[in-house]
């Protein structure tokens, strides 16, 4: 019996070994393991992970071998008369002290790496990262660049109406761009609830907490696009606010900074322009789909009891001043946040106009439009 089990065991073992050796499986295995990442720290962390993993495997093999040996060798049939030993001070001392020593051996490199991670003197580039329900805002403190990064995956893909793309749920409308080889420091905080900014390839995971600024830093040596996620439950669309960072050579980074500045200049010009209803409506619909649908839904009906309906709402129908105020200030004690810093004057005016026009609101209410200058006016200090 035992012999048969042993031969079976041998053949299974050989089978597993063959599998492990074939390179295809090796690649598949890498997909199941932690990423090594692209920074010095991330590689150190990966090595620590593998070290502690193998320590566990070895201890596990030893303990379980003794256990399975006992299970086979000391059945009632083979050993009808059990031994009576039930303590052994030396043995017990040994299996208290030896694990302790192994832990000390493990704690030393772990503490060293941790100390390195915490050494976060000022970076070459400082980027403030702000978590919102459910998107990220990035502010480049030195270059005065400021933008939001939203999920770019089509909701029709999520709802299985069209095929899913390669970077399903891992793509954004605007990536964070950083240069190769520079120390980049992230100052991470949140506007509403707690989020967590995770970039596995840099081994950075830092909670974004309202009222706190957490820091993390990285130096990336390799250009590329790296994808991460929000890792602290932050409400309904927690799964739909990815992090994407593009690492580029220095020249490309400088050009990008230049582009962003020109874009901001153009936006200022747009604010001055005279807008027609159609133009506002069109722009407003885009803004709405990007920023508002998550709660208020495509049909403007919201979710009863949680998120207010806009279609047929008295404010959207007849109270233009209050409508602007809500978007600018948010609603105290509710999920509705202030969009004053999130949307440009143009987008703000457009989305208010759109929600006052769509879903029959124009027919049922005053249908008054809001132009960018109205928002500029609102922002001026009062009195």
């Amino acid at each position, binding site marked *: 019996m035992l012999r048969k089990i042993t031969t079976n065991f041998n053949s299974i073992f050989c089978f597993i070994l063959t599998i492990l050796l074939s390179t295809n499986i090796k690649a598949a295995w890498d*997909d199941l*393991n*932690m*990423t090594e990442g692209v920074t010095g720290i991330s590689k150190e*962390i990966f090595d*620590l*992970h593998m070290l*502690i993993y193998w320590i*566990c495997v070895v201890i*596990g093999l030893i*303990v379980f071998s003794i*256990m399975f040996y006992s299970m086979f060798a*000391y*059945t*009632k049939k083979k*050993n009808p008369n*059990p*031994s*009576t*030993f*039930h*303590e052994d001070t030396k043995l*017990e001392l040994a299996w*208290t002290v030896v*694990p*302790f020593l192994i832990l000390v051996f493990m*704690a030393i490199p*772990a503490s060293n790496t941790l*100390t390195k991670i*915490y050494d976060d003197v000022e970076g070459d580039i400082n980027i403030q990262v702000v978590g919102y329900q459910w998107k990220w805002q990035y502010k480049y403190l030195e270059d005065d660049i400021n933008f939001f990064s939203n999920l770019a995956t089509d909701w029709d893909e*999520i*709802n299985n109406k069209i095929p899913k793309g*390669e*970077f399903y*749920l*891992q793509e954004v409308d605007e990536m964070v761009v950083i240069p190769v080889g520079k120390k980049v420091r992230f100052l991470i905080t949140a506007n*509403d*609830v*707690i989020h967590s900014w*995770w970039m*596995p390839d840099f*081994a950075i*995971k830092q*909670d974004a*907490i*309202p009222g*706190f600024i*957490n820091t993390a830093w990285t130096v990336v040596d390799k250009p590329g696009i790296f994808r991460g*996620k929000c*890792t602290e*439950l932050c*409400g*309904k*669309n927690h*799964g*739909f606010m990815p992090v994407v960072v593009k690492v580029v050579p220095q020249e490309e980074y400088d050009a990008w900074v230049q582009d962003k500045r020109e874009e901001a200049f153009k936006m200022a010009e747009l604010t001055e322009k005279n807008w027609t209803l159609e133009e506002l409506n069109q722009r407003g619909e885009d803004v709405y789909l990007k920023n508002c649908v998550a709660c208020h839904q495509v049909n403007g009906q919201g979710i*009863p*009891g*949680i998120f207010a309906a806009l279609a047929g709402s008295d404010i959207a129908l007849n109270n233009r001043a209050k409508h602007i105020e809500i978007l600018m200030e948010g609603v105290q*004690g509710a999920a509705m946040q202030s969009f004053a810093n999130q949307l440009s004057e143009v987008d703000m005016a457009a989305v208010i106009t759109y929600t006052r026009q769509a879903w029959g609101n124009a027919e049922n209410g005053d249908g008054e439009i809001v132009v960018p200058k109205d928002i500029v006016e609102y922002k001026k200090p009062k009195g």
Partner: protein
Amino acid sequence: MSAAIESHNHDDHHHGPAKGLTRWLYTTNHKDIGTLYLWFSFAMFLIGGAMALVIRAELFQPGMQIVEPEFYNQMLTLHGLVMVFGAVMPAFVGLANWLVPMMVGAPDMALPRMNNLSFWILPFAFFVLLSSLFMEGGAPNFGWTFYAPLSTTYAPPSVTFFIFSVHILGASSIMGSINVIVTIMNMRAPGMTLMKMPLFVWSWLITAYLLIAVMPVLAGAVTMMLMDIHFGTSFFNAAGGGDPVLFQHIFWFFGHPEVYIMILPAFGITSHIIETFSRKQLFGHTSMVWAMTSIAILSFVVWAHHMFTVGMPLAAELFFMWATMLIAVPTGVKVFNWVATMFKGSITYETPMLFAIAFVVLFTIGGFSGLMLAITPVDFQYHDTYFVVAHFHYVLVPGSVFAIMAAVYFWIPKWTGNMYDERLGKLHFWLSFVGVNVTFFPQHWIGLAGMPRRYPDYALQFADWNMISTIGAFLFGASQILFLFIVLKTVMGGKKATSKVWEGSRGLEWTLESPPPYHTFTTPPKVD
């Protein structure tokens, strides 16, 4: 006065339970209350399990198919709360009720009326909690850890009902714990010194102290939430000068001992079963007691390992890493002791033994991943991914839940006087064993590969293993129906059990007939 005498006389002749529903409603008997706890826990296990299956069904494929993300969050929140507070904890309290008096040689629990109260407020707590599913705005949707401000400023209105429910659960647990402590401290049979006490009793003594220490902390946390939501305070609201991280410190100061509350009694159960079926006295009884005590003490100084990413100072991160790693030492001692008990024993493999061995192996795997999670820098990669989900399900499902099932199989012949169907028991074990591993083992991999927890939808590279995990979950879920069937069958009849039930039985409970008399030990037995 004469009426009192009369009723006293009447009692003398009437040692059985009352008939009908009032037996269960008014009962002060430790066995009846134990039975109520166990059935209640099983009902909650099925409800919480059904919620888990909703979660797994949604994750079967990428994309949103079955539920909305909002409802998904409600499911994962209620699944956690129901399983922790409704299934695992009441099951252990039920076992304590049944077993502690029998093991220490007492007639009943020390405080029988409080015992009745501590059970009967539980169904109301869960009625309040589960009714929130039908409220406007839906059930709590902020995870079982309910981090502020998601659970305060941004919570659905039903959060108030959730807070009320947690208060009731806390009161129930504290009353139950006081009862256990008073019983153990005062009602042990003559000669049973503390160090001679059976390990299940020891494990519950320690657990009860943990509960009394941390349940008020949880009550404090939810009360502060209540104040923030309704009375304009700002404990956790940064805009009002409060501190969202404070919430996490308070929650985990409760939460980490809570984790051991759910595993210590399982240690006790496993020790009894392994020594019985190895037909050999447990190795290192004294070191087992010390190991459990050190684990309990350490559990108060490791809470922030759940919070490595909140931005604590380096010194705190180092301290909590080292303290957490230290827990591996006493936990290792327990595992080594179990293995040493089996070594040179005379082992048979009845269903309780199978569950107990699976407990040792799979709990140890959960312990290994726990050790990996303790390494702070590496935790930056593991934190809040499916690796964590795999870790705590390994210690809770094939850990606590398997131990509870092992206990049911082990003691049900004593409780009912009938043997369970061994063939069906083994079938149930193997189905559960395969189901649990197929469900949770792949979650280690998808976690390492980068899938965060509490995600209703995921990127395409996680699709295969999520599908397999879901298949395993349904297998595990379905096999629990078999468990229900086996238990019912045993309650209704079966081969009669002897007093000793198992060949290798040790302990006072096996000196009682099966089923035991209604008032367990009317005269205290003598322990040498």
